[in-house]
């Protein structure tokens, strides 16, 4: 019955020609095409009305010169407008001027002192300050602390504070330091583990704070200054906060974000922007820029658009591909902050076949670091050292550098000499019984940005498979079980945590305490003894000497093969602010006090 009525069911849709639908499609696309062909109109930099455009010192000098020439010699008119001259004067006389806009990718990146769940105040915070801060020379800069020293056994650390003021006018006192310590521990905040070794803090006077440690700790300033570092909080505000877990600083009225840093809170719109202004009462040199705006742009593409259109002035943490493509654009410059983050091929020294030191040594020669770094685009090859020379400086044992250069022949030679392996005529390495060497390497899923580890492994895999005849297989492992997975894998790639390789103390990574284990399942009694010795040594030269010996042991055992260290690529607009490259922050991207104290507005000749 239905079939018959089907026949009569004619509908008008069917009479529509299919051609017309394509016409519609073209029509819609046609609407957008003109807009795509038109030149980008957004090259005008917004915000000039508020006086962002400035001149540099040189320009000021030359303009004054030409003005003098005009006045005294009757020559041509000066080039600069009155406004530009006044801006130049601002720079010259160090009066804060202009606003720099930086994108942040998530709300968490706003400098909120949410000390309960987050890692604490970032060391790069512009509002809050710690006692000391580490610099790239392996030394410390003073921050809130004017000077510091330790007792001979490195158990008592005394900090002498600067004469600083909180941004609400209260003086910074040693009570605040003590309060910060007590507060973190009393409220069992996440950050408390940094201060675990501190027994108590004493304040003999308003500007002296003394930390008493349970064990000697020659690197205590290191602990305080980074990963993640401790910032000092104003006691008079935080002592009223019972439960930091639900303390909402945005809603706290006049006591918004009171710190002691070079910038102070000006305005904020939750989830939109965070605006800071120069703190004129700062105890150090006040910044050249008047305002710093952190703007939330969660989307990577939007960030790039914003940089190109001048909405933002600087874009940190871009990918190498983005850097490559941005280099050609007008008014945009890209630079690399060599970083303490790196990648290594780590071994599990207990599992077969990586429990054989010869195997590890042999593979160390088979890593083409040059190649691997190139695939990343922002990386520098690091030779077989377990501390980064860039950061650890003279703590690096010179004998260990270039010990394992890239040489497949050497690899083959080591394998040939080994009892467990054989090398056939093609140069392929086999187990003694003729089996192929099979390596399964876990990859951390999408956990790692830009899949850098995958790129590195891909570069190395070719050598290992083609030249050595291994069978290398990657296994993508979800982020949350990755840690378990690498515990059971003989070979894995590891991102060297930032600033972990800058001090001999960090060689602790390879130490096996009587109770615990380490990442590499590495256990060398000689090394462990050296480590214990190091922990009880405070003398710098002695520590260096022990460090050398430890590195020598490691170079022999090769629990890991450092491959390369990466940097943070930053793009900035050249027509807005200058001085980005004058300071290379140690970590935390460019959101570093030192960077923002150094940048200056530039003049834009075009305007």
């Amino acid at each position, binding site marked *: *019955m*239905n079939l*018959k*009525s*089907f026949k*009569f*069911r*004619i*509908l008008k*849709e*069917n009479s529509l020609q299919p051609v017309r*639908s394509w016409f519609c*499609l073209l029509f819609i696309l046609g609407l957008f095409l003109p807009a795509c062909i038109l030149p980008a109109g957004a090259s005008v930099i917004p915000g000039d009305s508020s006086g962002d455009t400035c001149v540099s010192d040189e320009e000021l000098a030359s303009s004054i010169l030409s003005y003098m020439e005009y006045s005294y010699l009757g020559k041509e008119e000066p080039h600069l407008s009155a406004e530009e001259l006044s801006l130049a004067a601002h720079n010259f006389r160090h009066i804060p001027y202009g606003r720099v806009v930086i994108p942040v990718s998530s709300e968490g990146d706003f400098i909120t002192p949410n000390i309960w769940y987050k890692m604490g105040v970032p060391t790069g915070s512009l509002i809050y300050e710690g006692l000391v801060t580490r610099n790239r020379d392996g030394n410390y800069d003073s921050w809130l602390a004017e000077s510091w020293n330790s007792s001979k056994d490195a158990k008592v650390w005394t900090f002498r504070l600067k004469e600083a003021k909180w941004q609400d006018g209260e003086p910074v006192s040693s009570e605040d330091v003590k309060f910060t310590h007590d507060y973190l521990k009393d409220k069992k905040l996440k950050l408390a583990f940094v201060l675990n070794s501190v027994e108590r803090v004493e304040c003999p006077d308003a500007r002296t704070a003394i930390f008493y440690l349970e064990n000697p700790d020659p690197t205590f300033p290191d602990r305080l200054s980074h990963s993640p570092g401790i910032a000092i909080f104003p006691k008079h505000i935080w002592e009223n906060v019972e439960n930091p877990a639900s303390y909402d600083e945005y809603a706290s009225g006049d006591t918004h974000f009171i710190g002691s840093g070079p910038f102070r809170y000006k305005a904020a719109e939750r989830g939109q922007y965070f605006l800071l202004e120069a703190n004129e009462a700062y105890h150090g040199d006040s910044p050249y820029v008047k305002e710093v705006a952190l703007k939330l742009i969660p989307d*990577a*593409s*939007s*960030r*790039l*658009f914003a940089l*190109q259109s001048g909405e933002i002035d600087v874009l940190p943490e*871009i*990918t*190498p*591909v*983005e850097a*490559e*493509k*941005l280099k050609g654009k007008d008014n945009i410059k890209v630079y690399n902050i060599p970083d303490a983050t790196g990648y290594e091929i780590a071994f599990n020294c207990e599992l077969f076949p990586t429990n054989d030191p010869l195997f590890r040594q042999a593979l160390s020669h088979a890593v083409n670091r040059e190649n691997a770094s190139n*695939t990343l*685009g922002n990386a520098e090859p690091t030779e077989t050292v377990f501390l980064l020379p860039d950061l650890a400086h003279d703590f690096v044992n010179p004998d260990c550098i270039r010990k394992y250069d890239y040489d497949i022949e050497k690899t083959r030679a080591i394998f040939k000499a080994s009892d467990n392996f054989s090398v056939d005529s093609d140069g392929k390495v086999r187990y003694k019984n003729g089996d192929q060497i099979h390596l399964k390497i876990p990859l951390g*899923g*999408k956990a790692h940005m*830009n*899949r850098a580890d995958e*790129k590195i492994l*891909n570069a190395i895999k070719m050598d290992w498979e083609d030249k050595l005849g291994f069978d290398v297989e990657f296994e*993508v492992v*979800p982020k949350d079980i990755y840690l378990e997975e690498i515990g059971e894998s003989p070979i894995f790639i590891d991102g060297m945590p930032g600033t972990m390789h800058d001090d001999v103390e960090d060689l602790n990574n390879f130490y096996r305490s009587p109770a615990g284990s380490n990442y590499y399942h590495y256990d060398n009694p000689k090394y462990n003894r050296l480590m214990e010795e190091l922990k009880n040594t405070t003398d710098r030269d002695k520590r260096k000497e022990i460090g050398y010996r430890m590195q020598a042991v490691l170079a022999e055992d090769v629990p890991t093969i450092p491959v390369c260290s990466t940097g943070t690529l930053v793009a900035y607009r050249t027509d807005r602010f200058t001085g980005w490259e004058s300071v290379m922050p140690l970590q935390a991207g460019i959101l570093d006090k030192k960077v923002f104290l150094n940048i200056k507005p530039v003049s834009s000749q075009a305007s």
Partner: protein
Amino acid sequence: MLLYLLVALLASWLAPYDPLEISGSPCESPGPDHLFGTNDFGQDLFSMLLLGSRATLLFGFLGACISAGLGTGLGVFSGFLGGRTDRVISGTLDVLMTIPQLPLLLVLSIYLRPGLYLLCGVMGLLGSLTQARIIRAKVLSLSTENFVYAAKGLGLSDFHIMFRYILPSVFPLTFVKFLFGAQHYMLLGVGLSFLGLGDPEIVDWGQMLHQVYSGGGFALGLWNWFLPPCFAMVGLSFSLSLLGYSLEPWLSPQLRHEKQAFFECD
């Protein structure tokens, strides 16, 4: 449509490279070696596009299959048997339908760390709820029709009636819903991968878009990287929905009586 299916089937022969293999240097421009150039990883985009069609199509069609099949089954059962079965099933459907789909999918895709098939299954399951409702309504109206009474009068078993009489009548509707479902799920699947929640090992267009987008290819104007998956997806989705829309009036009962009144065919 057919072209897409063909490409998906023949992808492995057509593709010049393994899509995951790094076959060139990063971000090459289109050229004879790499038809659409390479991505930031050095993988061949043309091969990725071809092989990506597989996962994308599979996602759409599998999801739609599950939702259409399950939904039809449930709907027919519930609508035809009536009584308590119906009340239980439709009550459950009502309650389950209020659970928002996309958020649940997002949550699941994070926590199930899913294979393609699992996600398809969940999507299909959720989609089958709506489908079941539509089919049930249709079956309800069908069961009052004379031919069903007649069949009942003949003493045919319920199952026989369901399979021989009801199922063929609802099939056109199911088919149209299947087409729309396929489009919907395809877009959804691509959307999930686009958010970076897909299976990292399986290449699909959503993942390609995700890579372009998070890799900045879009903002930097790398058209060869961005446009092919975009156009492929839009084209497929457009053709699917056109097919669905043009078939719908033919197959669905909704617009029937427009002219029927005049011809009075019984």
